[in-house]
């Protein structure tokens, strides 16, 4: 611990970083940590204050899964003519509708500004096929089926710390599972996302439990692969959530 005595030569950030890293060692290897804080070897004041910097946080979020267009498909018959052509029987345009989403996320601070996060989200969007232009005049129909969609993901977050407001950017990916209304089909795939958001502390740190709470809002562009799809490639869906984050 002799290096801590030389802390006055370091930048404040460097001290904080060193302390966070030592805290990590404490959690992972308690025996080593006891040695690190042995009596008579107390850290400087600045580093004691930094010990309050939280390392874990839990977020409960609600918001909207934005859905997306899955494209159009025609039902065609082969035309009776010497050169083959196609006759439209009817056409469909399919989409996944926007739906409420609830999400729980757990974050862990790895570096001064870098957090890793894991999340679990749940939504029930609808797959809707708008059927039209029937050749025999059938009424247009919106045929739908409700999906149950669960995503388990992991990602990385880079956060700019301020006194009360901490903007961040995030990116990650995870496992996507969709179950249809009749519970006969379970389709799995993956989801990748990128986006950003902001954390706003409800009170300055050190104000008891309220100092550990923050409002969080974020917006992500999510690319769904596999699972229930019409084309191999499809555009991103927007996911917007907001909620409360508790720092532990």
């Amino acid at each position, binding site marked *: 611990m002799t290096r801590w005595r030389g802390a006055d030569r370091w930048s404040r950030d460097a001290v904080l970083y060193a302390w966070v890293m030592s805290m990590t060692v404490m959690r992972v290897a308690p025996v080593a940590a006891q040695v690190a804080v042995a009596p008579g070897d107390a850290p400087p004041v600045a580093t004691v204050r930094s010990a309050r910097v939280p390392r874990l946080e839990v977020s409960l979020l609600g918001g909207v899964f934005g859905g997306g267009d899955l494209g159009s498909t025609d039902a065609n018959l082969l035309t009776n003519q010497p050169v083959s052509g196609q006759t439209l029987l009817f056409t469909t345009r399919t989409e996944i509708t926007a739906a409420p989403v609830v999400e729980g996320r757990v974050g862990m601070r790895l570096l001064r500004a870098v957090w890793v996060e894991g999340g679990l989200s749940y939504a029930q969007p609808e797959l809707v096929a708008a059927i039209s232009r029937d050749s025999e005049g059938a009424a247009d129909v919106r045929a739908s089926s409700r999906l149950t969609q669960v995503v388990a993901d992991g990602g990385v977050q880079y956060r700019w710390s301020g006194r009360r407001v901490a903007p961040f950017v995030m990116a990650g990916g995870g496992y996507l599972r969709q179950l249809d209304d*009749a519970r006969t089909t379970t389709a799995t795939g993956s989801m990748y996302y990128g986006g950003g958001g902001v954390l706003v502390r409800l009170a300055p740190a050190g104000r008891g439990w309220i100092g550990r709470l923050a409002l969080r809002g974020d917006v992500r562009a999510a690319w769904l692969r596999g699972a229930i799809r019409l084309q191999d490639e499809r555009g991103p869906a927007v996911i917007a959530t907001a909620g409360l984050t508790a720092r532990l």
Partner: protein
Amino acid sequence: MMVARRVCLIALLAATSAVPTSAYLKFGYTITGQSVVLKWPEGRAVTYVLGSRGGGGVSAGEFGDAIGRAFARWEAVPTSTIRFTQAGTTTRAPSDNDNVNVLTFADRPELDRTLGATSYTVDIVSGSLLEADVFFNAAFPWSVDTAGRPGRFDLESIATHEIGHLVGLGHSALGETEVVGSGRRVLAAGAVMFPIAFSPGSVGGRRLQADDIAGVSDIYPDGAFRQSTGSISGRVVKGGVGVFGAHVVAMHLRSGALIGGFTLDNSGAFVLAGLAPGPVVLRVEPLDDGDVASFIDGPRVDVDFRVAFSPQAFFVPRGGNVPDVIIDVVAK
């Protein structure tokens, strides 16, 4: 003791006995109250003999080549195990109960609307096919040209249709027609097994479509077919009462593939099998695009309802079934 009975089927105006639990239309036979799918015994190729004469402007050699290509097309379905073997030629006319499957030209000028026909001999104990004979009406002008020939019917297209009957398929209702004089003209078709042929000059009937492929694969499935496809079952009702003879079509939202079937009992029950997994929508229409008897026997077929779609989309499970689907239709 094997008892054989002849079941006569005329391809373009077919009289059929249908199996209630099937997609498309598989020929069936009722044995002790149970419907049995007509099919060739498993494990061996179906052997056929070609007529040695030409007809309708096609030579014997051209006839054999065209028939060979049509058989090859059905054999090429990757999810079906049906196989064929040619066993030479014959000068004999097709004959029942001789255990020889003959495909040949025949002079049948009295059948002025029949391009070809398939007849069966069936073991009425087991339902197995014992024999099938096909004739092509030499009274019509035929062509085997690669791109077809104006004014002549494409032999390969009609042979592909007749061989569909030979393997046990009935007629598909995937098509649209218009009334012309006292008959009907096909406008478009979604299956080789549609009962009305394309016009002279067209070769569109050579290509098997999704409904044909699902049908032959359902009768002669390879090891993976049942596990790799799924089905939808349910009822078509009008005012709460089952509709007999409704044509139900599943359209796959990913590929656009169309696979049809029929409600074949008084409860309006249907089963669409051989569907690719994934999202589908269902369309129901009356059998009003052809002579009803060319699809299903019996006077009970209800054509008094409007074309309709199910308001639900469905996800066909791989190797499973979506049960209890109810589709309401209303009278015209």
